[in-house]
């Protein structure tokens, strides 16, 4: 008897795909495709220097110009997308997995478990993320795997906070009591009963963290703690060519804009998901 109301909801959701979600998804798709196809679509190899064409401004042969040792900026930007593609999703996934587990457990067990977990997370979060990452990478050495691990781990407390707040509302609900009453295990209650009900906040958190993972990875590259020269890394390219900002801005501007492209794409998807979820 209440069935028509439901059809309405489903229909509304299908009809009203937020435009920001579509635009963002298109931008991200373009980036992923360009990164995957870079070896085939880039006009030049990313590391090849053309000493006859140093610091060429954008023009027919080099649409984004060349840098001071004659490398094609377009090709380097295209290849640079690959390292972001490798790092950001993996780091985000790691952060989400760790953070969700901690957050759900803290909310579910409450009491001392919660108190201790939250104090520990407070302590981790008392250290600015970039600083922690710098400290850790200085010791571990800069490598793609280490960047993933470090970003994933420093993101975990932030994810845990959000998921704990969302789960706190859920674990107090009586369907959780009902599950306990029939003797379900802790893992079942946490991941099968509660987790699906915090999927919305988790999705928003995921896009948010993905954006910040790109942010952090690029920043670490810029600070010389990510990819090492001569790798075509966006952050590193900005840092390397910073001195040329006044004379050859294209060497800096295009990698910076590439980062902006990905970040804005993720932001639009995030906004679309949030709007789609309703209030």
């Amino acid at each position, binding site marked *: 008897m209440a069935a028509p109301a439901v059809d309405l909801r489903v229909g509304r959701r299908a009809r009203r795909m937020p435009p920001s979600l579509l635009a963002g998804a298109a931008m991200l798709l373009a980036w992923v495709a360009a990164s995957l196809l870079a070896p085939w679509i880039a006009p030049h190899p990313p590391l090849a220097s053309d000493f006859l064409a140093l610091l060429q401004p954008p023009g027919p042969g080099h649409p984004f110009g060349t840098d001071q040792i004659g490398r094609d900026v377009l090709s380097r930007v295209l290849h640079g997308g690959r390292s972001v593609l490798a790092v950001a999703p993996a780091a985000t996934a790691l952060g989400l997995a760790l953070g969700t587990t901690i957050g759900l457990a803290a909310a579910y067990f409450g009491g001392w478990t919660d108190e201790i977990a939250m104090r520990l997370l407070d302590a981790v979060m008392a250290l600015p993320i*970039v600083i922690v990452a710098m400290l850790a990478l200085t010791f571990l050495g800069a490598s793609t795997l280490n960047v993933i691990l470090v970003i994933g781990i420093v993101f975990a407390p932030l994810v845990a906070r959000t998921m704990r707040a969302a789960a706190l509302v859920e674990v107090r609900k009586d369907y959780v009591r009902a599950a306990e009453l029939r003797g379900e295990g802790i893992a079942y209650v946490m991941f099968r009963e509660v987790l699906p009900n915090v999927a919305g906040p988790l999705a928003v958190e995921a896009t*948010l963290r993905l954006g910040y993972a790109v942010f952090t990875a690029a920043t670490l590259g810029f600070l010389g703690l990510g990819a090492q020269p001569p790798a075509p890394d966006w952050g590193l390219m900005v840092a390397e060519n*910073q001195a040329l900002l006044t004379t050859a801005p294209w060497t800096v501007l295009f990698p910076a804009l590439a980062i902006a492209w990905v970040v804005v794409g993720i932001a639009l998807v995030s906004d679309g998901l949030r709007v789609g979820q309703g209030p």
Partner: protein
Amino acid sequence: MLAYASRRLALLTVTLLAASMLIFLVTSVLPGNVGRIMLGPFAAQDSVDTLNRQLGLDRPVLERYAVWLAAVVQGDWGRSLHFNAPVLPLVIERLGRSLLLAAVTLAILVPSAVAAGIHAARREGGVFDRTVSLLGLSVRALPEFVTGVVLIVVFGIQLGWLPVQALPPEGAGPVEVLRHLLMPALCLVLVLFAYVFRMTRAGVIEALAADWTRTARLKGLPPSVVVLRHVLRNALLPTIAVLGAQIGWLVGGLVVVETLFRYPGIGTLIQFAATAKDLPLLVGCAVAVTAVFALGNLAADLLAASLDPRIRHGSPRG
């Protein structure tokens, strides 16, 4: 209030202790030989061992932590290897400059983001709200060096309005200092704006929809009184909490912005210490930054408590 403040202060001590332990653990337990990291791969094993002994690295971790902590508390933060000078005065000088930059940032950020948040909330879903929300969301995850590059290209190079470097010449007046700090501060503002804006907006929307706001309206109070006296007090509480937490991002951003704008603050010092493997300096910077962050949080909590009796009385919010 006093009871709350002292409780909160005790908590601060605990947090700082835990954070100091983390910093220490990162520098002493992580794989990697400290002496080797500092001296580089080509140094003789003998000198590496000697350095390790000098640094006391052959003793147990807990003992080393206690010795280190005692020294830090007494103001002995060790000597920088590179500058061959005590760490503490170095850190304090740089921290002062960074705090100036942070102050300029907050002075721009807080009024603009809070005002925009209130305005957007009063016309929820309107053009202003949607535009600012989407713009803020888009720029908030842009690294400072990206916005910085764009700002420099536009305002520094193309238009030539603002200096490209943040450090003013010796003896510059306050206006000149501000002109130099404007662009780096703007980079930091852009990253933080969206978060503060969204919290304010959400807080105001929630407060406007609250039953007690309806009570205030149906008491016949003028709209300005309803908003200023009843709504804002409650609506700004989450914003204040967020501001405290955002100081962490601010400090992280300082590293990048100071590097980009060649500003000798704590950020460039950290960056230098990290690349030069100057461990005592790096650890000193981390401790200083952590302390500033924790104090910022404390200030935010105390401000929130002064506004909300429920926090003062220790009862749960909501």
